[in-house]
C-alpha cells in the first residue's frame, strides 16, 4: 500500500488508508463539503420558500414590517460578515503560502467579527423584544398592525435564528481550526481542513447576503 503521509512529513492520520493519494482524498473532502453545503442551501431554501409565499400573500405587510427593522444595524452586520468572509479567505491564502501566523491572525479577526455580528444581532433582538415585535402568537407590535406582519416576524426570527445557529456552529469550527493552525497543522502541503472550515463560513455569509435585502431592504 503506497502511503504518502509519512513521506511528506505530514502528521499521522492525514491520509486515510483507502485513498490512493492525498490529492484524491482532498478532492473527496472538497466534494463532500460541497455536498454538505448543498444540503445547507436546501435547508434554508425551505424558509426562503415560506418567505416567497407569504411575501406574495402579504406584500404590504412585509414592506411595512421590513421598514421597521433597523436598517443601519442590518447593513453594519452585512459589512461585518463580508469582512469576516474576506479574512477567512485570506487565512486560507496564508496557510497555502506557508504563513501560519498570518493565517491564525486572520482566523482571530474572523472570530472577532463573528462575535461582533452576534452582538449586533443581540441588540436587534433586544429591540424586538422590547417592542413586542415577536413571531406568531407573541406578536404585539404597536407600530405595524397589518395582517401578515406577524408572519413577517415569524420568518424574520426563523431565518435569522437559523442563520445565527450557523454562525455559532461556524465559530466553533473556526476556533478549532485556529487551534490546529497554531499547532502548525496547515501548510502549503496540506490545508484541506482549513479550506473546509472556510467554505462553511463563506456559506454562512452567502445566506446572509440574501437575508439582508429580503428582510431589511424591501
Amino acid at each position: 500500500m503506497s502511503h504518502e503521509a509519512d513521506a511528506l512529513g505530514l502528521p499521522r492520520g492525514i491520509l486515510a488508508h483507502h485513498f490512493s493519494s492525498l490529492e484524491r482524498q482532498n478532492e473527496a473532502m472538497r466534494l463532500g463539503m460541497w455536498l454538505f453545503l448543498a444540503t445547507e442551501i436546501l435547508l434554508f431554501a425551505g424558509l426562503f420558500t415560506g418567505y416567497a409565499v407569504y411575501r406574495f400573500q402579504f406584500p404590504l405587510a412585509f414592506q411595512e414590517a421590513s421598514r421597521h427593522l433597523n436598517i443601519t444595524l442590518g447593513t453594519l452586520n452585512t459589512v461585518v460578515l463580508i469582512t469576516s468572509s474576506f479574512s477567512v479567505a485570506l487565512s486560507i491564502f496564508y496557510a497555502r503560502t506557508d504563513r501560519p501566523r498570518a493565517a491564525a491572525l486572520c482566523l482571530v479577526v474572523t472570530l472577532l467579527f463573528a462575535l461582533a455580528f452576534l452582538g449586533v444581532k443581540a441588540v436587534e433582538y433586544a429591540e424586538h423584544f422590547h417592542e413586542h415585535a415577536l413571531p406568531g402568537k407573541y406578536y404585539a407590535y404597536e407600530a405595524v398592525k397589518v395582517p401578515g406582519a406577524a408572519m413577517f416576524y415569524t420568518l424574520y426570527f426563523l431565518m435569522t435564528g437559523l442563520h445565527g445557529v450557523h454562525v455559532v456552529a461556524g465559530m466553533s469550527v473556526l476556533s478549532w481550526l485556529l487551534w490546529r493552525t497554531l499547532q502548525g497543522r496547515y501548510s502549503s502541503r496540506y490545508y484541506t481542513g482549513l479550506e473546509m472550515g472556510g467554505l462553511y463560513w463563506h456559506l454562512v455569509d452567502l445566506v446572509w447576503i440574501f437575508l439582508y435585502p429580503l428582510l431589511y431592504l424591501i
Partner: protein
Amino acid sequence: MAESATPSSKPDADHQPHPSHSAVPYLVVWLALLGLTALTYITGSMHLGAWALPVALTIATAKSALVAVIFMHLNESSGATRLVFATALVFVALLIFFTVADVATRFKLATPAGAPFGTERSQPEGLLENQVPDE
C-alpha cells in the same frame, strides 16, 4: 494508521493543483462586495416599489456569485463540485417557483382580503359578506 508506508516520490506540486500566488483577488472581491452592499443599501432606501425586489435580488446574486467563485474557489474546483452547487440552486429555484406559482394562480376567492380569518384558535376578524356562518 498504516505503518507499512512506502516512500513516495511524487512531487509536492501534485497536491496543489491551483496554487494562487496573490491575495489581490480577495482584496478586490472584498471591496466589490462592500461597494455592492452600499449600492443595495442606496437602492433599498429609494423605495423603488415593484422594482425593489428584482434590483435587490440581482445585487445579492452578484455578491453571492463573487463569494462563491473567488472566496470559495469555485473557479478552481472540479466539475463535480460546480455541478453540485448548480444542482442545489436549480432545485431551490424549482421549489420556490412551483410553490409560489401555486399561490399565485389559485382561484381568487381562496384567500379573500381580511385573512387571516376564522379558525378555532382565533376568532374571525374582518369577515366577508356571505362568509360561512358561525353557530
